[in-house]
């Protein structure tokens, strides 16, 4: 039951995961992970209900009580919340121990039997040695976990209603359960949801690469357009004009001063010229 349930919910969660990625969130950490887990709850409940009923009818020839999805999911979730961290600790511990033993064994082999053991052979030998131990422990732990999930499912089997009929009648029964009552409506809803998701995805997707090459020089996209603020421009223009006026005034003053001096000089020159010939004489 776990296998089809996982794959039933996986594409839907994947679509949400992709939307989170497009929105610059990582679905495997932080708020992205929290959102994804939150969305996964109703998806998993629905998938588990559907797959559980199918397996019950097809393989066990019984029809379960309504609401099996939510009830079973809750039991599985509580059990897995305890079992999976424990499995991680066991497998991590076994792997570390296996790696340590393997390193010592290979070291001993290199010292006593084969001092020139090449690197490639050493890596392969170590990997096979600790890898087989770690894989074996992992498989055993997963089997124990799945056995636990099966044990939790047994009461639901006992409370289920027995189904009579031939193989063909049972196949038609569970097959008929999966066909929606209004197929065009469901098809339209799926298509509409798909179209909306596509639009959201393209709206969120960044048009430039999030990992630019460190040495790449971006081609200039043209001069920057500066926003014009009219009041500011007018004030600056007034300042410029005021300065220009001052300069012009000063220049005029200088010019008028020069022309006055030159007039005085012109008056003094004939007297100076008259004096000069008297000196010559």
């Amino acid at each position, binding site marked *: 039951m776990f296998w089809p349930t996982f*794959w039933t919910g*996986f*594409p839907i969660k*994947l*679509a949400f*995961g*992709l939307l989170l*990625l*497009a929105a610059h969130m990582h679905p495997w950490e932080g708020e992205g992970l929290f959102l994804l887990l939150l969305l996964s709850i109703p998806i998993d409940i629905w998938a588990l209900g559907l797959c559980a009923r199918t397996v019950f009818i097809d393989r066990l020839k019984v029809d379960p009580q309504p609401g099996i999805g939510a009830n079973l999911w809750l039991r599985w979730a509580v059990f897995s919340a305890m079992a999976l961290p424990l499995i991680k600790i066991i497998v991590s511990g076994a792997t570390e121990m296996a790696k340590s033993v393997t390193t010592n064994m290979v070291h001993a082999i290199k010292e006593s039997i084969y001092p020139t053991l*090449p*690197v*490639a*052979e050493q*890596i*392969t030998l170590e*990997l*096979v040695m600790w*890898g087989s131990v770690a894989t074996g422990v992992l498989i055993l732990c997963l089997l124990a976990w799945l056995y636990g999930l099966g044990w939790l499912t047994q009461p639901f089997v006992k409370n289920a209603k027995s189904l009579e009929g*031939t*193989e*063909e009648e049972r*196949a038609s029964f569970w097959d008929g359960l999966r066909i929606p009552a209004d197929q065009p409506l469901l098809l339209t809803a799926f298509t509409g949801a798909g179209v909306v998701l596509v639009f959201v995805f393209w709206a969120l*997707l960044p*048009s*430039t*690469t*999030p*990992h*630019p*090459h460190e040495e*790449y020089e*971006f*081609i200039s996209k043209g001069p920057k357009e500066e926003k014009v603020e009219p009041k500011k421009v007018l004030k600056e223009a007034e300042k410029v004009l005021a300065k220009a006026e001052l300069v012009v005034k000063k220049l005029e003053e200088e010019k008028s001063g020069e022309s006055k001096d030159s007039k005085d000089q012109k008056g003094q020159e004939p007297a100076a010229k008259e004096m000069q010939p008297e000196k010559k004489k």
Partner: protein
Amino acid sequence: MQQDSQPGNQPNPFEKIVEFVDERVGLKTIQAKMLNEPIPGGSRWAYAFGSVLLFIFILQVVTGILLMFYYVPSTDHAYDSTQYIIHEVDYGWFLLSYHFWGSSAMVVMVFAHMSQVFLWGAYKKPRELIWLVGLALFGIVMGFGFTGYLLPWDQRAYWATVVGVEIMDKTPIVGDFMARFLKGGPTPGQMTLSRFFVIHVMVLPAALAGLAGLHIFLFRKAGPAGPFRGTPEELKAKTDYFFPRQIWKDIVAMATVFLIICSLAFIEPVVLLQQATPDPGDYHPEPEWYFLFLFQLLRLKMFGGELGQFLGAIAIPGAFMAFLAALPFIDTNPERNLFKRPVALIGWIVIMVFILVFTLSAIINREFLH
């Protein structure tokens, strides 16, 4: 979807078009033949791999054409044009990353599809030809990966190709010719890039399209093999038709694979190394991930020297492929139940573990290189 016209009413425009085409082409007969194929034992997710492969290939063609609008296959401009696609073209980084991860997805799906066919005994009589054409398609997919890898013309692309061509050179009799043909001369350069580009965008797509068509035709002729367990009554009770059940499963599988490729394109977009130079410098050449196991195998001391390299790179893989081609003619036992074929099951597990162990070893070996 066809809309049924009510009795006494004129057919709508869509129905008129369908009638027009059907009269001249036999559209309804083709449609019935394509969609109403019975699948004994019911539709299965395991049957979706082939359709997913076709879907990935179509998207590779689409993204490849879009990339070709900007890519320039010359040694002077290949790197710059690829960088331009990544940095300047709107969504170019996503297109290129999708194309890159799509190629890896094709290899994974090919392995999955071949494994499913092998484990279900669907290569046995009367499906030998389908198996043989499938092996040729596998070779073409590997060829796509090999030729496409060179096109960005960065250090990784260049030196991975050099290593690959040198391995090919070790093939007796034809190896030297094949290596010189691919390189277009004594050393890799512009000729190499041009040839790889033409092979990647013209020769291989045409070959794949033709062989895929033949593959599907042969499959339809022989019919689906169906599950290897179940009584005839059970199989008959669960018979589905290609439309809508298998098509629905195929669409969901395609959508899932598509979303996975998009996610990978996001998480690990393509980032080029330095432009290719004749000197590798500090860069340690490595092939693409699906050839890493072979690369690591060749590092073992037993495959050292000329003979060892020939054995590890050419003889053993070649013998394995020849064995796969001869498999339908060697294994003539009609039994298809996997659990009654222990040699097949154990052999498959051994091969998969071998590939996994040596691929992981190659990844661990990188630390020793630095």
